[in-house]
């Protein structure tokens, strides 16, 4: 009997992100029935695309027990460079290609310091965060840039769905397949679980970790472009502290900060959507703007709390089984 009760508790805890998501959704829907309108749901997806894509790259990094604090600056730098080129009359495709290249290069610089010079990811990405933001401010001269032409790209529709949602979906599905079905993905989990063991098993850990930061840079640049094409605006605050939102989305989706545990689908996708649902919901019920961070942080805190409850519970269950085996 106790095991069945334990199983129910475990089921609830295991699916906590999903249940929390449903609860938040249900809560806003009862407060304002229009919240469930298809238009609004699509809006939530559009708005979570930018941070969701960044969080997908962050998930790769977190899985290796690393961290990337520079993603906000990568978003800013790639969007600023693209904005500058477009404002200068260059074609949009060229500007986007340059922005993506910047993201990849930025990630490679992070990766170089982390894998070759063996400096902690926290410190490396912290310093490149400073440097990248400084560089972007230099490019934009701390002025806001208006690019109304881009909003057309951002709001263009393919098969009835806006382009950012397609990109978001493609990135998440592709990342999921890479993590689940390829050797690279398995190596990432192996390194996160036990870096030393992975190395002894013959995995080229240096290469895998290097690529992980490049992936994060690439995703951050894409996130920056999605943001840019949604608002058509480069402001000096673009991407500021977004690294925390990206980490929160990944962790909300069940990714561990200590590596080796987490998934992009449904995990990170759901995490990003949850954060955005909370914010959109608060806009919907016309809450004061000051309340947003209070509610958002409370929801994240609660999700992390449930996750650690689950961890403790799992350990208790394990312990009980060992004791039974020992006495019987």
């Amino acid at each position, binding site marked *: 009997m106790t095991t069945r009760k334990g199983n129910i508790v475990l089921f609830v805890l295991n699916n906590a992100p999903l249940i929390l998501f449903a609860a938040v959704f249900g809560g806003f829907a009862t407060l304002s029935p229009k919240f469930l309108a298809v238009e609004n749901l699509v809006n939530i997806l559009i708005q979570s695309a930018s941070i969701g894509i960044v969080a997908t790259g962050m998930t790769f990094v977190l899985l290796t027990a690393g961290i990337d*604090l520079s993603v906000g600056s990568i978003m800013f730098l790639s969007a600023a460079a693209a904005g500058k080129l477009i404002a200068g009359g260059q074609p949009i495709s060229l500007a986007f290609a340059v922005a993506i290249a910047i993201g990849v290069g930025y990630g490679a610089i992070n990766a170089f*310091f982390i894998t070759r*010079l*063996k*400096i*902690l990811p*926290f*410190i*490396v990405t*912290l*310093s*490149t*965060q*400073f*440097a*990248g*933001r*400084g*560089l972007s*401010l*230099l490019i934009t001269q*701390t002025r806001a840039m208006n690019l109304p032409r881009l909003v057309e790209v951002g709001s263009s529709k393919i098969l009835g769905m806006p382009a950012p949602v397609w990109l978001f979906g493609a990135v998440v599905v592709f990342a999921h397949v890479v993590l689940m079905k390829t050797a690279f993905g398995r190596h990432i989990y192996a390194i996160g679980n036990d870096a030393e063991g992975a190395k002894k098993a013959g995995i080229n850990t240096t290469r895998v970790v290097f690529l992980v930061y490049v992936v994060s840079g690439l995703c951050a640049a894409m996130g920056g472009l999605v943001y840019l094409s949604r608002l058509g605006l480069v402001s000096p605050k673009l991407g500021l502290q977004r690294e*925390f939102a990206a*980490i*929160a989305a990944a*962790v909300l989706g069940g990714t561990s*900060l*200590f590596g080796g545990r987490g998934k992009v689908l449904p995990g990170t996708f759901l995490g990003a959507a949850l954060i955005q649902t909370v914010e959109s919901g608060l806009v919907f019920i016309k809450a*004061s703007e*000051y*309340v*947003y*961070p*209070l509610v*958002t*942080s*409370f929801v*994240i*805190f609660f999700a*992390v*709390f449930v996750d*650690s*409850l689950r*961890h*403790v519970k799992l350990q208790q269950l394990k312990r009980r089984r060992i004791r039974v085996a020992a006495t019987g």
Partner: protein
Amino acid sequence: MLPKNHGNATDLTSSVPVRSRAVWRRLLFSEHFVLYLSVLYFLAVWPFAPRLASPRNLLDIFSNMLPLLSVAIGQTFVLVTAGIDLSVTSIIALSSVFGASVMTSDGGLLSGSILAVPAGIAVMLATGVAIGLLNGTAIARLRMPPFMVTLTTMMFFSGFAVWLTGSQKISGLPRAFVGLGVGSVGFIPYPFLIAAVLATAAHVTLSQTVVGRWIYAIGHNARAARVSGVRVNRTVVFAYAASGFCAAVASVLYTARLETGDPVLGQRILLDIIAAVVIGGTSLFGGKGKVLWTVFGVLFITLIDNSLIMLEFSHFTIMIVKGAVILFAALMDALRNRLLAAQ
């Protein structure tokens, strides 16, 4: 690669290079390394910015150091337990708002009363300790990861400070409180006295007391510490409460100097704080760190900030150079550790 033992021949024929190499090595491996690095940096920049060494600027550097130093000392406690405290900036902001709303002459709770200043300071310190206790309890008892706990409390309490004030600053602080920022006992300014007392107390706690030893033990290996009878939960809660207290002291210093309660006070310095402690040599993985190292790390960061302003760089260039310098310091540290391990 350094040779492991020197042959007699080299010792006799080239005693000068060997001696200079020994000096270099002692400098590189000394625990005052970051201090030497700061001095070296100072001397390198001095010719380009002569004002750097003016008595007035030196005083500026030291007074800018003090609030940063007190938050960084608290952060050292937490980092040694292998945790992290991202909520310190929100503690600085919320303490500032709470303290100011008790003391302010326009509509403060105790405006005009003799008790206003002591009560205000007590409220500020209590705020810091309370948030620290909350962080510590969530981390130790509920087993939540420190990064996420303090990230969410950071978001929550900075949002709370802004919400309370409607993002307005609170002015009209009593003169006795403002005096804390600028006044002095003889030649010694109050902020210096406060920071010195705090640093000494923290140093003694970490190096001479049982709690201090427990903090290191937890940072080395929490499970081993628990098995050998360390009160892990209480010690972790203590470390976060200490961090909250130190952040509140910093808030007192900042608020007194700016003469206003500011809901976004200290928002920009979070990463400076952690960078300063880590550059000092305290490990992010716990078990290793000293208050003295943190003093050097804070000196280094403050010096860089000040010198870049003295060199009249633009805001953007300062950020770029600062990023590069932090990376360089980390690189030196990594090199140093590799050489140490090779010995």
